[in-house]
């Protein structure tokens, strides 16, 4: 009976991997302890229906993911602003010269410039995401608001990449210029990861809504 209970809970939990394994191991240990005193059927009954237990975990995970995503979006936004200011001001001595990135040979300059012309599209995506986030927040949907904000930020993430591509035609090879480009790339990668995380959080939120509270 306990095995059947765990199998059902396993199917209902909206998480995978180590977290699911940990939850199942804890529940199993609890049920075995209780079953030793009151029997399998009573232990399972006292623990509660699998759907209710899964719902409790789903709600807890949605709150956790949303909060972390919110922190990440706030941090990324601040870094983004700092990067934009640094790119605009370049408060260090510039040394322009030939780029030695291997990628310059892989990506033709024409292609970089073509990508650069797509900048308005990414900006539109970013603004759309942030508008959706603001609307969702007004309707009291924090998960959707944070997720849309993260997606919008991912749109903005492409901008530093394009700046970097654009810079390849007029390259600042100073240490600061190189560090800035590297920071921009890392930032873009983090923002895209945030977007993926946002999509996963939305999926988790939908799964949690399908379970009884």
């Amino acid at each position: 009976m306990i095995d059947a209970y765990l199998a059902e809970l396993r199917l209902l939990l909206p998480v995978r991997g180590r977290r699911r394994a940990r939850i199942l191991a804890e529940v199993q240990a609890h049920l075995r302890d209780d079953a030793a005193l009151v029997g399998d059927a009573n232990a399972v009954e006292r623990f509660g229906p699998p759907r209710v237990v899964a719902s409790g975990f789903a709600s807890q995970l949605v709150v956790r993911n949303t909060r972390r995503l919110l922190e990440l979006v706030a941090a990324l936004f601040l870094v983004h602003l700092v990067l934009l200011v640094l790119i605009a001001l370049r408060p260090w001595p510039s040394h322009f010269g030939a780029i030695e990135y291997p990628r310059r040979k892989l990506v033709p300059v024409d292609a970089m410039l073509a990508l650069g012309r797509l900048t308005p599209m990414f900006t539109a995506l970013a603004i759309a995401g942030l508008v959706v986030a603001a609307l969702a927040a007004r309707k009291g949907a924090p998960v959707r608001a944070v997720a849309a904000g993260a997606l919008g930020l991912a749109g903005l993430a492409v901008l530093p990449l394009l700046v970097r591509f654009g810079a390849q035609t007029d390259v600042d090879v100073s240490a600061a210029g190189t560090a800035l480009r590297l920071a921009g790339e890392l930032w873009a990668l983090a923002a895209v990861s945030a977007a993926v995380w946002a999509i996963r959080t939305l999926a988790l939120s939908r799964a949690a809504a399908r379970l009884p509270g």
Partner: protein
Amino acid sequence: LTLLVLAVLAAGPAHGYALIERLRASSDGAFELPEGTLYPLLHRLEDDGLVASRWTQVDGRRRREYRLTQRGRRARADREQAWRSFAAGTERVIAGPA
């Protein structure tokens, strides 16, 4: 429920099952929780940094043991104070004017 769990853990580390037993015993059976609701709460408290956990071996079986962190102790004290204040105020209202 959060305050109850923090208060029970203040007595010492415990795994989920022992925690429920302690809660049941110290409340003279007043709190008969649906036991499955405890674990999502413990995971949330861990995410919030109020408790920490680790796997242990008890009688040859693996169990996840929870303990209060420093932050958890402070949260417990704050919540206890808030609860006492709330309970005292409620008591005065119920008792009516002197």
